[in-house]
């Protein structure tokens, strides 16, 4: 059997490429470690010396503000040196191959590569070619996976709901194109959430999504009934042009989260969104800014979760 490409020979996390295939113990190790780092981010001196002398290269082949910034903050709070490379305007446009780019950065003594790429699998390819002391963290690859977002979603759910047993979680919207949804579904099923629902129009749900262990709803009101957690996904504007949807107004009417639809969920339900939000398309402002929303805490927790992932892989 082929070894899990994310784990070393001792079964420890060497690279973080995908939540899929990670054992429960490692997911819990990351969440527990992030819990301790959350304490560090509340102090006056928000820095620990763990990654002093290490270099973290942020390789973003696709634009991102929030993810790149939170990775940068996380690395700096671990005392690492951070180098941000915006490859869309760099060597790639001059024709350098992905592996040549990485080999060059490796020659500059990188320790961690944080990679975002529009092609699914790019971080896996890099992980197969880096030196043993180098680590790769997937910051989103194509439609495939966005493991640190999935982990921060899990962290947020555990923070507000204490544990996963007994929880009903609904993921609403464009599951088909969402790497966030996939990562979160794998994480929730691994950690034992008994009911994960996906809600959306047929055209935006992947065929055979039930095989991931989720219940499928096309009617949002039915799907939201008695949920503990509602995760809204961003509707990408280009989907409208792709004829998958009639219009943003029509989408909002059926799948936009409004206060009256949210009232069908449990009274203490939390509302999450990976950002960036389209207000008035997938979520109403009264909900996004309302008492159930934990969208901004998610961003803060993302820093602690990324600190945990970097310090665990760099130590293995």
């Amino acid at each position, binding site marked *: 059997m082929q070894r899990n490409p994310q784990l070393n020979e001792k079964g420890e996390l060497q690279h973080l490429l995908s939540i899929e295939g990670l054992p429960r113990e490692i997911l819990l*190790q990351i969440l*527990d470690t992030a819990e*301790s*780092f*959350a304490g*560090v981010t509340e102090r006056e*001196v928000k820095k620990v010396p*763990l990654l002093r002398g290490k270099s973290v290269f942020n390789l973003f082949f696709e634009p991102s503000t929030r993810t790149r910034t939170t990775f940068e903050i996380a690395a700096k709070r671990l005392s690492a040196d951070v180098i941000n490379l915006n490859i869309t305007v760099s060597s790639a446009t001059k024709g350098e191959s992905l592996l040549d780019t990485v080999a060059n950065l490796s020659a500059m003594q990188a320790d961690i590569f944080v990679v975002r790429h529009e092609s699914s699998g790019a971080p896996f390819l890099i992980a197969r070619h880096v030196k043993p002391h180098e680590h790769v963290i997937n910051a989103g690859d194509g439609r495939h996976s966005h493991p640190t977002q999935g982990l921060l979603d899990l962290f947020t759910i555990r923070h507000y709901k204490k544990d996963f047993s007994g929880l009903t979680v609904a993921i609403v919207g464009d599951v088909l194109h969402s790497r966030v949804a996939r990562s979160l579904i794998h994480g929730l099923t691994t950690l034992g959430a008994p009911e994960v629902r996906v809600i959306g129009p047929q055209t935006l749900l992947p065929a055979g999504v039930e095989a991931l262990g989720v219940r499928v709803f096309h009617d949002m009101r039915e799907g939201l009934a008695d949920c503990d957690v509602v995760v809204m996904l961003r509707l990408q504007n280009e989907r409208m042009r792709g004829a998958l949807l009639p219009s943003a107004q029509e989408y909002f009417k059926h799948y936009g989260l409004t206060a009256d639809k949210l009232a069908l969920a449990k009274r203490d339900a939390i509302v999450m969104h990976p950002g960036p939000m389209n207000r008035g398309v997938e979520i109403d402002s009264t909900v996004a800014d309302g008492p159930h929303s934990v969208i901004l805490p998610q961003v803060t927790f993302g820093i602690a979760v990324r600190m945990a992932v970097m310090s665990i892989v760099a*130590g293995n």
Partner: protein
Amino acid sequence: MLKLPEAERLCEQLAAELRPRVGPKSAMVGLYTGGAWLAERLHPMLGLKTPLGLMDIAFYRDDYAARGLKHDPKRTKIPFDVNGSELLLVDDVLYSGRTIRAAMNELFDYGRPASISLVVLVDRGGRQLPICAQHIGARVEVPPGMRLTLKKQDSGKLTLALESERAT
């Protein structure tokens, strides 16, 4: 067979020794896991006004490069202002001194204490750094290759135990 002192008795003895030295600026921080148990015991015995602080030095260890991050770091909680405080830093067993160095580094990221005194249940010698304790329950000669640890029974009773380093 080495006879180990009774942890409960040492705890009483430390409390008696510390009591006359406690003042309005005194505060206590216990180091996970054994030092936290000891501090949870000493803190009410001394009647300290400030809430107890608990610290896990996982993010400040000097062997991270060799051993990586330990699996279940606890969240450090210092619920008082460290600036100007007279700190009692509490650990169960003082050995190489490396844990205490890491703890002091972490403490200074919370503020600048007026002073730090080290309180340990047992000093087993074997220091690798210039660190010494101000308040010591007992000095015990422990053979190399053996680990001396504090245990907490289900009843809450504290006991000292000796085990082979290979077993842990």
